[in-house]
Structure formats: C-alpha cells, structure tokens
C-alpha cells in the first residue's frame, strides 16, 4: 500500500488532498502540524510526506529537521506543499524531493506524488 502523509493546518485542504489521493488509490494519513506528523511517522512508516511549511505549533522547517535527525537514511521523500512565492527555493532549502505550489492543479499533485511514491523506475 502506498502511504502518503499529508501535513497541513488548513482542514479544507487536508480533506481535499485526502479525497484526491484516495481516488487515485493511495492510503492517506493526515496531520495538522509538524508535531502531529512526527508522532504519526514514529508509529508507522510512510512512503511520502506532503509537507506544508507555515503551520502553528511545529512548522515545516522544524518538522523537516526533527524528522531527518530521527530517521536519517530511513526518511521517506518529502514534497513541499506551500503557498510561499518561492516554493522551488523552499524545497531546495530543506532538501525536499519536490514541491507542489498552492494553488495547485490536481493532475500535477497526483503526478508528483505518484512519481515520488513509485520511484524513478516507473516515472
């Protein structure tokens, strides 16, 4: 099962992305901030993390740091999911595998997620 963790503080976006990815056959886990996400990944492995950056409690940057520190080589790929003007730069800054800039196209979102989950062999 391809497990995608979606981290975003906007409940409507969480619902939307969950619906879209489930329609595409992914298993979707959700967290509304970095802290919740960190708890989830400690309990179960995931194949991809779709990560919003600006969030309360623990933001994307902090989560990224803590996650990599904790899991090292075992980290799932991260795709930055941001409304910032420089999504590409943000992704590079945190060493993410890709980015989806808000507002986004559903097809693009699905494509990026699929590429990352299935790995380059199917891309």
């Amino acid at each position, binding site marked *: 099962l391809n497990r995608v963790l979606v981290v975003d503080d906007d409940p409507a976006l969480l619902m*939307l992305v969950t619906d*879209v990815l489930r329609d595409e056959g992914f298993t979707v886990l959700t967290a509304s901030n970095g802290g919740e996400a960190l708890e989830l990944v400690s309990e179960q492995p995931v194949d991809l993390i779709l990560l919003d950056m*600006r969030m309360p409690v623990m933001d994307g940057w902090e989560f990224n740091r803590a996650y990599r520190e904790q899991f090292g080589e075992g980290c799932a790929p991260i795709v930055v999911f941001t409304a910032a003007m420089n999504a590409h730069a943000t992704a590079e800054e945190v060493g993410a595998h890709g980015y989806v800039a808000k*507002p986004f196209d559903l097809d693009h979102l699905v494509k990026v997620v699929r590429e990352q989950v299935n790995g380059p062999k199917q891309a």
Partner: protein
Amino acid sequence: MQDESGSEGAHYDLGLTRVLARMREAMEASLRGLLDSAPDAMVIVDTSGRIVLANAQSVSLFGYAREELLGKPIEVLVPERYRSGHVRYRDNFLERPATRPMGVGLELYGRRRDGSEFPVEISLSPFQTEDGLLVISAIRDTTQRRQAEEARAYLATIVQSSHDAIIGKTLDGTITSWNPAAEALYGWPASEAIGRSIAIIVPREQLAELEEILARVRAGTTVDDLETIRMTRDGERVNVSLSVSPIADASGRVVGAAAIGRDITERKRAEAERARLQEEQAARGKAEAAVKERDEFLSVAAHELKTPLAVLRGYAQLINRRVQSGGVGEPGWLVESVDIVEQHTDKLTRLVDQLLDVSRIEADRVVLELGPVDLAAAAREVVAFARTRYAGGPEIEVGGPDRLVVQGDALRLEQVLVNLLDNAIKFSPGGEPIDVELSANGADARVAVRDRGLGVDPAHRERIFDRFYQAHANEYRSGMGIGLFISRRIAELHGGSLEASFPEDGGSCFSLMLPRRIDG
C-alpha cells in the same frame, strides 16, 4: 658746630690754598654724595671727554671700579662700533652746549666692563666751572622698559593679527579698542567704532543678553563661549562664539571688558548641513525599511490569499473529476464540498476587504455610516457566530449589561469585535476560556476581550498595532498583520480607542472604548 670750630682750630696753621683745597674737596664730596643718591647713573666729563666723576649707580651699571673710570675717555662706556662717531657727537655738543636728551631718535647702547651691551637713555647737561666746561650725563638703563614695550607691542601684534574679533570696552559698553578682525567681522572701521556703544553690533533681540553680559563683567566674572548672534554694519546677522573677560586696573578694580568674538557662521552652516544629511539619511533608511516591510507584507499577503485559492481551485477540479467519472455517489459529499468552497470564498473576500481597508485607511478614505449601535447585542452575535465557526474551540463567556448603545458604524464595529475574538481564539491554541466583558463607565462604553492564551512577548507589545506587524510571525501562523491596525483605526474614527493589556497570569486583554450614546 663745636666739633667743627674745634676742627677749624686744629687746622689754624694751614695755608689759604689748603683751605681752598679742602673746601673744594668738601664740595666735591657733597656733590658726589648728591650724585650718588640720584636714581640714574651719572658721569661727568670734561671738554676733553675724560671722566672726572662717576656716581655709585654708574659704577654698578657699567661694572667698573670708580678709580678705573676716572680719567678715562667717556667712550669706554660706549660700544666699540659707536666710539669714533661718539667723539664727533661730543665735539658737536661742545660747540653748542645745551641741556638736552642725547641721540634723539636713535637707539643708544651702553657697554659694560665685560663687553655686554644694554639699551640706555641719556640726557646731557653742560655746566661751567672755573676749570672749564663740564658735561653731566644722566644714563638710564632702559632694558626693562624696552622689554615691557616689546611685550606690549608683541601682544598688540597678536591682537592685530588675530582672526578673532577682539574688542575692548568700558563697563558701560563704550568701545575702546577694535582690532582688524573686528573690522572684518562687523564691518565697522576702528576709527568709527571706537567711542561708540557696543550696542551697534548687537541686534535688538539680543540687547537683554548684552545687559546680562555687562552685568556679569561688572561682577568680575567671565562669559565663556557664548553662542549668540551679532550684527554687521549692514544689519546682517552673524553667528558668533563670544568670550568676555573683565579687565582690572592695577588696584584690581574692574574698569572694562575684553570681548573675543569668533565667527561661527560657517561652523553653524556646516552643522546644519550635517544635520540635514543625517536627516536625509534617516529618511532614506526609513523609506528603505518601508519598502522592505511592504515586500514582506506582500509575500505574507500572497501566501494568505493563495491558501483559500488553493482550496477553491482544488475543489472545483475535484468536483469536476468526480462528476465526469460519475463518482459523486453520496449527495452529502457534494453539499459539504460546496460549503467549503463558500467558506473559502468568504475567507478570500475578508482578506481582500482587509487589504482594501489598509489602503483606505492610508488614504484617509474610511467613511463611517453612523447610527445607534447596541454593542452588547453585537458582541453576543459575534460570539454566537464564533462558537459555531470554531466548534470545539475555547469556551467564550459574555458578561455585562444587556444593552450598551454607542453612536457608530454597525458593520465596522462588528468587524472590530470579530477581529478581537478571532485573535483571542487563534492565539489560544490550548483552548483556554475567553471572556468578553461589556461595561459602561460614565460617558464611555467598553468591550474587553480577554484570553488566556499565548499573550504577547514584551518585546513585541509596543508594535502590535503597527501595520503589517506580526507578533507571532515566526512561531504561529497569524494572518497578514493588519487586523489590529485596522481595528484601532476604526475605534479612533469613532472617537474611541483600542488598547491592549497583558494580565500577570498570561494571555492578553484588548479593550475597545467608545463614547456612549446617552439617549440610547
């Protein structure tokens, strides 16, 4: 007398010649005594220029023993280079002997036994004796006087060549001296300034200050580096730094004042120029900071706007996908999705309204539609709405009178209440209870929104009402930083205020104060 007659008796046998010789001796002795008591060195020469008498002062002045001088030509007392000339002068004098000063207009020098020279002043008096013409020279050492004169001349040169205006004046302010720098600075020539009142260079508005300066001088104190304004002959004002000192006479009595004025117009101009440059630099810095602030704001605003846009676009696409694939099985899902679209449309509208409010406030174009507004009812409505909107959020209590009427713009006041309550909820992530307290205090109506959440770090408190300022920008997602800026402005436009306080036990309390409508 007895002694003398006795003495005479003892010399009874002496011849007339000897008597005369003794009389001469006695006369010479008394003459010498007289000369020795004179203040000046005195030397008597005969027509051949030989010294026949030298008094004690001349002995000490020239360093010779009296015996060494007697019979010597007077020229031993004259520097070698003048000796031949002196002989000629001496002959001329003997041709027309008369009492007069010697060498008028010339610098005269005496020569000591050791060859050293010194300036002298000499007066000559011829007198006839039975042995012929004798000349008495009275010689005064003028070294000290010369030095004093030189010192005075030196000081005068300093005053004359000084770039500072140096003015002497009496205690009543009459000008007694006026150096060239004073001429240059004030435009009055010394010849015209001296004798006039110092008031000629004091502008009317500084006359009181002049009185004060003169009073201080009379009291014997100085005025140091007083920066003031003086006036030229043409009436032009000049900035001067003024130092005034009392001048005392030999007995210590203050008889006048010396004023030194330095033209600091240029310095003042340079100072003003420097101040202007600093101001310019500060203004430039401020402008740059404003641009930076605006850039940051635009980036935050774009982020805030894109989030609801992402929801709108996403749901539109998702609904489209599912409709096309015939997958909208549950009617509930569609209704829910459309609700979300509507909510986010509202959110987007609010954000855009806020942006427009900022530009309206900055352009001073906010127009209030005034009427009676019941703040109590409005607050309860806003709270009721928040309770449904943030279901599961903090508990919100409303306290105070049932009716509290102010004159205001109902929509704008509701906007303020929504903003305060939204903030209270947003910054109470632990769901701590919130109180909304209404009260009437004389002519004022007050609504206080008190939360027990994050509060505001003391470092940020001063700026929370600033435009674009976000106290929790780094650690908490918090909108665009314009809510409180707009709310405070709305309160002020109503003739009221919006203040923040931070209770000891944490959280924040925002108080909206508005003038009550008494007939309401």
